[in-house]
């Protein structure tokens, strides 16, 4: 049974449709992310699940019960807000106890629960501190504890790491995943940062223009994107546009212009009818050196970008396009201005019809 299920959820603001026919289910105890650029409708979707917005159509079911008629305070879905929204006039302990007091639990029980949840998140003994005395990462954990103490069916997290600095964000990513593992609660995580979604999630939904483009485990999204949007948004990719020349056995021959022709696997769900197509090749699939027919381009080395394990060689092709090539540290066999050939395994080039924009 799914902890949370959305069926054909649609929401419009005036003539603008923010969320279109979104359907998905999240199995109990899993970490599910919705990944999309800002303005794609992911926050609206989350606010509908929390009850702050009402969907125009569709159903939202929590533990197999429709919650559309329940106001926000009667849904057992708790939310960690982007701004955290800790109550500044209450102490840490009172913040965590707030939800329990709303439920009318006896005082003794509340005190015990607050103490034990603070132990679990690794901040014992901070009950009497003021919110302003906490660091960013501590506030983050208190905001999560304030929800988790209520044993929610689903915990919603709205870009909770957005306000933290990079180092802390990397650390909190791992910590969040561990917390989720520890509590075994279903997490629904919203982000525009693909690395957050890929690192933490059991499944990711990529959202664009109010729709889900693809739902799947992170590796599947990365290796087998079903649309050009997913291919371009999840992970780094080189993107070339060209004209479709020939299709045979699921492989397209694409003319990039200037006489260059590449072969690419057709990965789109629908058959390609349009003549304009896009070809995506990941930087780490490309190496310096000649390769097979239809999987080689020539150019000159434009620049070398050092970034540790993420170092890149930028190669300018005959057409003037820059191609990112992953560079293992220390394996730099080329220098700027060299004429090189770049190649890739043929099945790593994916072909999609050009997106209508």
């Amino acid at each position: 049974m799914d902890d949370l299920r959305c069926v054909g959820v649609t929401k419009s603001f005036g003539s603008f449709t923010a969320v279109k026919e979104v359907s998905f289910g999240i199995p109990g105890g899993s970490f599910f992310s919705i990944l999309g650029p800002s303005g794609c409708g992911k926050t609206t979707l989350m606010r509908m699940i929390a009850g702050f917005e009402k969907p125009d159509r569709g159903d939202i079911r929590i533990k197999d019960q429709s919650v559309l008629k329940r106001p926000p305070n009667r849904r057992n879905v708790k939310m960690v807000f982007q701004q955290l929204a800790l109550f500044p006039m209450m102490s840490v302990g009172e913040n965590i106890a707030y939800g329990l007091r709303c439920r009318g639990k006896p005082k003794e029980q509340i005190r015990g629960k607050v103490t034990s949840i603070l132990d679990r998140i690794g901040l014992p003994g901070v009950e009497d501190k003021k919110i302003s005395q906490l660091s960013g990462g501590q506030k983050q954990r208190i905001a999560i504890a304030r929800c988790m103490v209520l044993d929610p069916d689903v915990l919603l997290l709205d870009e909770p790491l957005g306000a933290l600095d990079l180092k802390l964000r990397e650390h909190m990513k791992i910590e969040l995943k561990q917390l989720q593992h520890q509590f075994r609660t279903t997490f629904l995580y919203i982000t525009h940062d693909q690395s957050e979604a890929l690192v933490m999630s059991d499944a990711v939904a990529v959202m664009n223009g109010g729709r889900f483009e693809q739902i799947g485990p992170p590796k599947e999204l990365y290796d087998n994107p079903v649309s050009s949007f997913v291919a371009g948004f999840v992970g780094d990719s080189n993107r070339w546009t060209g004209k479709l020349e020939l299709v045979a056995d699921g492989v397209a021959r694409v003319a990039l212009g200037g006489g260059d022709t590449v072969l690419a696997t057709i990965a789109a769900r629908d058959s390609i009818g349009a003549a304009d197509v896009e070809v995506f090749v990941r930087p780490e699939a490309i190496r310096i050196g000649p390769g097979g027919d239809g999987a080689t381009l020539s150019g000159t080395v434009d620049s070398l970008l050092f970034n540790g394990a993420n170092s890149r060689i930028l190669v300018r092709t005959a057409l003037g396009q820059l191609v990112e090539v992953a560079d293992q540290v220390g394996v730099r066999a080329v220098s700027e201005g060299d004429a090189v050939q770049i190649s890739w395994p043929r099945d790593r080039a994916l072909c999609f019809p050009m997106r209508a924009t």
Partner: protein
Amino acid sequence: MRSDSGKLALILFMAPFILWIVLLIVLPQLGIGYVSLREKLGPRQYTFGLGNYIDFLMEPIYWNTLLRTAWMSILVTALALLVGFPVAYYIARIAGQRSRSALLLFCLIPLWVSDLVRAFGWIVLLRESGLISGALQWMGLVSGPVEMLYNDATVVIGLVYTVVLFMIVPLYSTLDGMDEVLLEAGYNLGGSSFTVFRRIIVPYAMPGVVAGCIITFMLTAGSYLTPILLGGKSSSWFTEQIYNQFITRYNWEAGATFGVILLGFTSLAIWLGLRLTGQSLATTVARS
């Protein structure tokens, strides 16, 4: 050298403020305090003592007037809070961004007219031959003219009307600073509308509530025109006693004593209020 020029700048910047405080507030108060301790024995014969204060305590009509003024000021403050909070909440949180400044301006309009004229406005409405009395007679609801002036209810209403703006402004500024997301979090964690109001909105607005109450209480307790004009001779407002001692009776010693007592009494009331709400003057003034 640097610290010297810094000191000079500080002195220059502070000079107008210090002059204002010393010349217009500290010195007159010291003078009043001095006069209040002076007992008149005969023409130009004085001695010092607490005689004036003892006189005040011995005369029930004096301290009854003070207590009455205090109670009515508290009532006015409470009513102003009751009326002002929804107004401030509406302007700060419900009204659209564009209508906000217009609404605040509407609240300020009464201040463009002097206290005196506004009090006469009430008189025009409420007197025996006034608009409301006339309208009631015209509708046949009453048979003869009705006098609605010169009673406590009218004084209280008139005072609430005069001071409510000074309640709305500090409330507005604290409520305006509250992030909507706090309320959403309050609901999300299971709070009902009442819980969110009591546990989130009110504590958040507390500095504004206390600041507004201090200002309205001080203004009410020290007001003179409105109680006199709307309450007439029966208003028994303490400022009226002070005026009478200074002007009518030419008894500066008693007037000064009453002035010191009023200051001490209102300060005590505010200190008590701050203690009861757990606020300090510093946080209250800083937040609103």
